[in-house]
């Protein structure tokens, strides 16, 4: 924890030094460190048996994100200073985390409302089609409620993971023990599989029409992985892959913007000042970083459109180099590792599935966006968890972490009790 805060402070110090800015950042830094430290202590106090590493990793990632956002938007021409806003969102996220830790320590209650949550999730996604919703960059992802603008899909997907975890855990046996086959693939009874398919299709369909490719991909893959984890049927994965390929082909043929994305991935040089501009700038900046990076504040990643949100990883790779970027990726991997471990240690199936679903979502989101900005896969607009600028994303990920923490508290306490019991015997 201390190390995470130190790294963040060092980052700010470097920036202040490099850009010779008179320093409101010191104030932010202190305030940010204070918030997360209090949160850390609070969580340790309330959930003494919970995972000890998750929060420091979150601190590190949000810290790096804050440093980069500050560097990319503070006192930069044509850019609004977003670091303050991001800091406020981190505060809100911390509040949300605290709320969950205090009131949802018995998270099993959530599973009782799983149908409601699923309905809520679909409604949330659909809300962008209400007059409150509006389009940004051609995708209809945003809802404005009074002064607050948010991306409902960031929250809807957590609700959906809870639904899937609860439902799959309940119906796991019937889903696995099916005898009917179709073309050699075992087909579960529609009665049991129906709700899963329905929620899945509804959310996915809506997202596709919102043109939110990144979220669509997540919504598609995460339930599939959860299904696999619950049933162990590789057939689901295969079936899913076939469905995915077919679905991709259909969307590719149906939607011009999907074609454009794929084309600018395959050959960005064809239109280097238009469709390929963003990805090429990203690659140029990443390459500019080299092994050790240009140093904080010395890169030119402002040339990438949307650098503070989707492309923040390019800026990190540019200024911190291969070494820094790999370190950040390792931090993400550590988070995923802890998440998987929580899932493995969790006492019951619904908890296991919930922890796994949340972790898988986190991991996939990271892989999709980092793969996108490094041109490993076609680009789909999605945030880098905790690091990218974006209130909904930050708050959503804090909630995700909070859920993982309460699950780990259970597992941790059980472990301690077992040890005590054994010791006593």
């Amino acid at each position, binding site marked *: 924890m201390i190390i995470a805060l130190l790294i963040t402070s060092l980052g700010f110090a470097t920036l202040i030094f490099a850009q010779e800015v008179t320093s409101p950042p010191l104030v932010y830094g202190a305030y940010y460190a204070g918030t997360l430290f209090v949160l850390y202590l609070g969580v340790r106090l309330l959930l003494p048996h919970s995972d000890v590493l998750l929060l420091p990793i979150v601190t590190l990632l949000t810290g790096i994100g804050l440093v980069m956002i500050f560097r990319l938007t503070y006192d930069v*021409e044509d850019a609004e200073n977003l670091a303050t806003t991001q800091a406020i969102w981190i505060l809100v996220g911390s509040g949300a985390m605290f709320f969950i830790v205090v009131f949802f320590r018995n998270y099993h209650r959530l599973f009782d409302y799983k149908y409601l949550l699923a309905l809520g999730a679909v409604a949330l996604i659909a809300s962008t089609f209400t007059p409150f919703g509006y389009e940004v960059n051609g995708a209809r992802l945003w809802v404005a409620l009074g002064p607050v603008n948010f991306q409902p899909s960031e929250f809807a997907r957590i609700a959906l993971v809870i639904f899937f975890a609860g439902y799959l855990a309940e119906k796991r046996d019937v889903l696995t023990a099916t005898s009917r086959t179709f073309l050699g693939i075992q087909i579960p009874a529609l009665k049991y599989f129906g709700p899963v398919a329905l929620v899945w299709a509804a959310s996915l369909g809506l997202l596709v029409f919102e043109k939110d490719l990144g979220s669509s991909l997540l919504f598609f893959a995460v339930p599939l992985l959860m299904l696999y984890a619950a049933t162990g049927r590789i057939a689901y994965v295969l079936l899913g892959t076939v469905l995915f390929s077919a679905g991709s082909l259909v969307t590719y043929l149906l939607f011009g913007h999907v074609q454009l994305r794929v084309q600018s991935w395959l050959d960005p040089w064809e239109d280097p000042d238009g469709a390929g501009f963003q990805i090429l700038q990203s690659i140029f900046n990443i390459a500019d970083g080299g092994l050790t990076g240009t140093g904080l504040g010395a890169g030119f990643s402002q040339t990438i459109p949307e650098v503070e949100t989707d492309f923040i990883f390019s800026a990190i790779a540019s200024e911190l180099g291969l070494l820094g970027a790999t370190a950040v990726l390792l931090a993400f991997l550590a988070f995923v590792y802890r998440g998987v471990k929580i899932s493995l240690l969790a006492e019951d199936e619904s908890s296991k599935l919930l922890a796994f679903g949340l972790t898988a979502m986190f991991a996939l989101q990271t892989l999709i966006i980092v793969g996108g900005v490094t041109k490993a896969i076609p680009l789909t607009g999605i945030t880098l968890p905790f690091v990218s600028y974006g209130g909904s994303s930050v708050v959503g990920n804090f909630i995700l972490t909070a859920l993982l923490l309460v699950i780990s508290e259970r597992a941790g306490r059980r472990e301690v009790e077992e040890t005590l019991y054994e010791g006593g015997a």
Partner: protein
Amino acid sequence: MNAHVRRTFYVFVAGFVTLVGMLAYWQVYARESLANNPQNGLQTQRSIQTPRGLILAGDDETVLAKSVGRKTGSDTVYDRVYPQGEAFSNVVGYWSTKYGAAGIEIGQNSDLSGTAEPATLDGLINQMSGGPQPGNNVVLTLDPELQRVAYEGLASSVTGRGAVVAVDPNNGEILAMASSPSYDPNTVDETFPELSSDPDAPLIDRATQSLYPPGSTFKVVTTAAALEAGLSPSQIFNDDGTYELPGYTVVNYKGKKYGRVTFTQALVFSINAIFAKIGVEEVGAQGLARMAYDFGFGDSYEGFSLPVTPSNLGPPPSEWTPGTLAQNSFGQGPASSNAFEMALVTAAIANDGEMMEPRIVREIRSPDGIILDRPSPSVRHEPLDASTARELNGMMQRVVTEGGLTTAEIPGIKVAGKTGTAETAEAPHSWWITFAPADDPQIAVCAMVENGGEGDDAALPIADQVMEAYLKGRGR
């Protein structure tokens, strides 16, 4: 169920490993090629955000080029400013993010841009930490006053087209190197398309990059070869105005006949027929070519900071007809040269036959004043032995005293020189090579005015002004 979760985790790990591999591909393997991609504007942006070093004249005070910072938002970008303007632009050049660079700006770019190997500890630390590295300062050998005199002389000459090069024969330092017409390097970003299509080619440095028939100034090379071959300056020749060869007859300029003259007088009156005879009968093709090559013909002066087009003698000497040899002997053949080369020839004669390595950069200094490089004078070549050089020196003094070139005379100082009137389809190019004081040479000058008429019409007065300004400046 745990087994499935674990398996999925391994897939995620594989995904992360792939991403690191992808990053390594971009940041290590493909780095160079991406950095040099024409679509990649990052290097240009970086270069305008780093101040380049100063370019200073030889007096160490006159600033020829500097970077001036300008705030745009949180970034400072630097504009290149040339306070001395067009008189120096053929040497200093320009530096444009749109149109590239020229002159010292590109010739010494690795010093000026700070991308050279770090030479001081500060530089090394800066480079290691990726911090900005201001460029090093480059001090030239140019005498700013001389450069001005030379440029203004050219600009106000008959055609306004020509070049002047002045050298210190003792150490090879270029004291002035002017070319006209010139351009304002401060506005190249806007004017470049116009300049590059201008028929007068202001972007070309006429002193080093163009080639012209050297005319009679080349006779000093023939003379040198003849002296080395054993001909005496007092050798008597009988001139009837022509020199006949199988299939070609040399006729004197304006058909003049000089009768009985010495070798020295042949040089003083620049008698073509006698030089054709000397070339063919005394020196020979190989002898003349060897002397010209010894003087630097055919040489591109690799180590010099500016590009130099090698002077040449046309086809290789083994293929010369007697006519080619005869014509080259008095500078009207296929041979071509420029002011830079002819100034070095003159300087070598002045310096007792030793040609010093020409230098235009005196010193490279780090931004905090540490001298990083200071090339010392070195002998490049020795085309003549000292006694031959002195004989030739004497003959060239008599060109001034007996040739009626009163403009070239400087009271109290012995001046040596040779005119050139290089015939072309239009008016002849006017040449003048000179050095002074002849008994202790301090400066050698070559002036050339395109289509300027006879040697003593256009070129001589400019060179004379340059020389007088220099010698006066030295308190003589």
